[in-house]
């Protein structure tokens, strides 16, 4: 399974849908997309990982890199993830404290709206 990336904007939030495997081979494409979105002025990103089959530390590095970029613009990068196998790697690395992780896009949008 390769990596499929898609994105669309809803109000002030850019939702990035990720499907497939994020590893050392595919992560550069996600990195490029996040950089491109930030360069185009999208500073509030929500990465939907519900269709991600595999995530390794290279992928984590890309997400942390994206977070650093949006924070430089007072933005946010949050995640939608309920899969235990993916959440586990966030827990092992302590990154659950770094990212807002939501159970659904709707839940994340509500939380995002409250912060406005």
């Amino acid at each position, binding site marked *: 399974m390769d990596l499929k990336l898609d994105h669309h904007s809803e109000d002030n939030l850019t939702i990035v849908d990720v499907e497939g*495997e994020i*590893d*050392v*081979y595919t992560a550069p494409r996600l990195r490029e997309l996040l950089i491109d979105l930030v360069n185009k002025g999208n500073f509030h990103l929500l990465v939907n990982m519900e269709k991600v089959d*595999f995530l*390794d*530390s*290279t992928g*984590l*590095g890309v997400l*942390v890199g994206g*977070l*650093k970029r949006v924070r430089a613009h007072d933005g946010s990068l949050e995640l939608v993830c309920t899969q235990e*196998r993916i959440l*586990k*790697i966030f827990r*092992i*690395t*302590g*990154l659950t*404290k*770094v990212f807002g992780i939501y159970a659904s896009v709707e839940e994340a949008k509500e939380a995002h709206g409250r912060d406005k």
Partner: protein
Amino acid sequence: MATVELTFTALPAHVRTARLVATAIARRTGVAEELLDEVRLAVGEACSRAVEAHRLHCPAEPVRIDLRDDGGRFEVTVTDSAPSEDVKPDLTEPNGGAIPEMAGLGIAVIAGLADEVEVSPGPKGMRIRMSWPASPNGLTVV
């Protein structure tokens, strides 16, 4: 004891193949189904690290994996040929802030996943040996 050896050119695209082979052999060796995700991720991390090290230091040299069914344990050894410093896991800062430096995160993940891990850095390369419990006679259905 049965061994499968795999060598591959240090290209990111081959890491997925290595993961798939390791997971298939782990399953056949009798590693519990719920541990297979951990095997897949840990072996992927070790291979990713090796590939990155080779691309920096010796892109022409292959990365090597040994997968062994050894008396009720499934053991994987990933060996690279790139000179390595002693890489220490560098996790979140004490206050839980963002990670300033991602280097070493792969090894930290492996340490969190594998049942037993031994990381041996050296001037001629690094060896990461990790293992998980397996059923003593492998899978009965073959």
